[in-house]
Structure formats: C-alpha cells, structure tokens
C-alpha cells in the first residue's frame, strides 16, 4: 500500500489543515495502518490532528511531527512517571517506553495518576499502556515490567532520544545517569518528598553529571520515606520534567544545560543553583 490513497483520503476528510479523530481512526482501519502511522503521514503533509489544536500556538505542525517521531523512555512509573507519561502522551510524543517492576498498591492512590481502585494489583506499566491507549491512541507505549539495572539498562535505553528519571532511589538514579552519559542521551531527572521537589538536567556533551546530590553518607533513602508525598508534588515536578523533555525534543526554548531546580511548595520558593 502506498501512502497516496491514504493521503488522498486524509486530504478529502480534513477541514482546512485539521484532521478529526474519527477520520484519523477511519483511515487507520481502512488502510490497515496504525493510528500513529496515519498521524505521521498527516503531519508530514501539513495536516494537524484536531486533538492538538490547542497546542498549535505553542508547537507548530512541524514540531508536532517531530514529537510524533520521537521516542522517550520513562524509568519509574509511580508518582512522577505516571504524570510524565500522561503529559508526554497528550503532548503527542509518538513512542514511549515505560519501565517499572511494581504493581499498584493502595498507598499509591493518593498521588499516582495511573492508579485506581480498579487496577490495584496490576503492573504499573500495564496500567500505563491501557491509560495511554485511551488518552492518545497515536502514542505507542512499550511496557517493560522490570527494574532498571546495569544489566538491562542499555537495552531499555536503546533507541530513545531522551530519558526521564522518575525513580525512587539514588543507587538506580546513579546507574541511569551513568548509562545515559555513556549513550550520550539527555536525561531529565525528578525527585520528590513531601512539599519538596527537585529537577535536574544532565546533557551528554557536558563533562559533569547533572546529578548534584551530595553522596549521602551510607546512601540511605532521602526524606520521602519520612515525609511521603501528597498529590500535588509529583504533579508539579513531573510537569517541569515534561516541559524539559518537550524542549529537548524540539530544540526549542531555553534548554538551560545542566541545571538543578529545587522547589519548596510550602514556602513557594524556587531555588536555581548556578
């Protein structure tokens, strides 16, 4: 099947440059293509799926094509990772790889977007696949129910353009940061505890690591075990992470280079070290 009859179909159904969801879905079924393939072809020819119309003043149709072609790996699908996946899917990032070994438990319900009373006991990455499939079928989510490690890291990062650190322990964060440097992969890190959050950017062309966490003596867990996390802290930090991923993929805006942002939501303070 060439793209021509498909493209003709899309052009005949579009209104101006907008392509309605039902027509995108019809094209996928009629021409036996995935929704994402139809979206790529539409965007390549200047047609914008109507779901992105409110993106348009922020992200051009060319930018939307770039996002649809992109691949991002999200390591950790709990508080931060659930929001990051949702935000990137709604943004239109075409390929997401979700990595997490855990299943949902009741204590996740206060903050983890992908958890519901219905899916307690379900693997987080499977819940992510279902949720993203319902939110944006043009996004292909690849679930990996495993813990990121030195042994499987290269395989999990393979083909990604940006990695997101949504992990919950320093040892695995360090391993992820190390492998991202080796693979020259930009890394967007987030960490949370109670009212507090932290964002870090590690770029591959920089000598040092964006991880500016002091090696805590003994490397016990940070404050999260003591403070837990309310609903809004992961949402806030994940939103900042998604914005940085978007800028890295589009090469747009002020990608700040290596930088750390420390957020105190209780005092409403944002601290950016040099």
């Amino acid at each position, binding site marked *: 099947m060439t793209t021509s009859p498909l493209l003709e179909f899309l052009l005949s159904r579009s209104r101006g440059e907008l392509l309605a969801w039902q027509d995108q879905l019809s094209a996928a079924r009629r021409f036996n293509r995935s929704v994402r393939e139809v979206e790529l072809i539409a965007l390549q020819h200047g047609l914008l799926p109507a779901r992105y119309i409110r993106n348009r003043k922020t992200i051009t149709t060319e930018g939307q094509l770039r996002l649809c072609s992109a691949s991002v790996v999200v390591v*950790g699908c*709990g*508080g*931060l*990772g659930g929001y990051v996946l949702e935000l990137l899917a709604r943004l239109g990032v075409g390929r997401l790889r979700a990595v997490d070994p855990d299943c949902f438990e009741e204590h996740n319900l206060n903050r983890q977007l992908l958890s519901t009373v219905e899916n307690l006991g379900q693997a987080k990455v499977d819940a992510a696949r279902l949720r993203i499939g319902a939110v944006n079928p043009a996004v292909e989510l690849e679930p990996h129910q495993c813990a990121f490690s030195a042994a499987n890291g290269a395989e999990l990062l393979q083909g990604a353009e940006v990695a997101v*650190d*949504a*992990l*919950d*322990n*320093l040892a695995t*964060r360090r391993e992820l940061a190390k492998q991202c440097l080796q693979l020259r992969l930009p890394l967007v890190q*987030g*960490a*949370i*505890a*109670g*009212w*507090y*959050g*932290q964002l870090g950017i590690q770029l591959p062309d920089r000598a040092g690591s964006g991880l*500016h*966490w*002091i090696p*805590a*003596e*003994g490397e*016990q*867990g*940070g*404050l*999260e*075990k003591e*403070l837990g*996390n309310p609903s809004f802290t*992961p949402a806030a930090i994940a939103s900042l992470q998604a914005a940085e991923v978007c800028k890295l993929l589009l090469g747009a805006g002020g990608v700040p280079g290596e930088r*750390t942002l*420390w957020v*105190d939501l209780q005092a409403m*303070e944002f*601290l950016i*070290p*040099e």
Partner: protein
Amino acid sequence: MQVTVRLVGVFRIDRFREERRCYPETATVRDIVCELGIPLSLLGIVLINGSHAAIDDQFRDGDTITLLPFIDGG
C-alpha cells in the same frame, strides 16, 4: 569570620531560615552541618554563594552557604 547560613525545607524546622554566623578561618561546610545537628544522610545539596559545592569545601568571610535536604522519592 562571618558567613550567612541559609537553610531550605525541613532543615528550617526548629532552626532558622537564614542567619549570620561566625566560624574559624579553617571551617568547612561539614562543620556547619555538624554544628546544626543536620544528619549527613539527609544532606542533598550544598551551595556556596549560589554555586554547587562539596561538603568539605572551605568558605570565605561574607559567603552565603545554603543547605538543601536530600530527596529521592519518585
């Protein structure tokens, strides 16, 4: 010498937000952290005059030392 010590997040509880304090010329950040009773395992980031620094770094008269908690939840 006199420096400004600035604490962030939970480090402020039962301590202070910002204070001018005196230390000997040879003092390091570690001395401040120990003096304030902050467990080293909870220390995340050290800044001297807004730039990342290490716990055994020395500082100068008039500097501002900022201590941020270690957080790693996700």
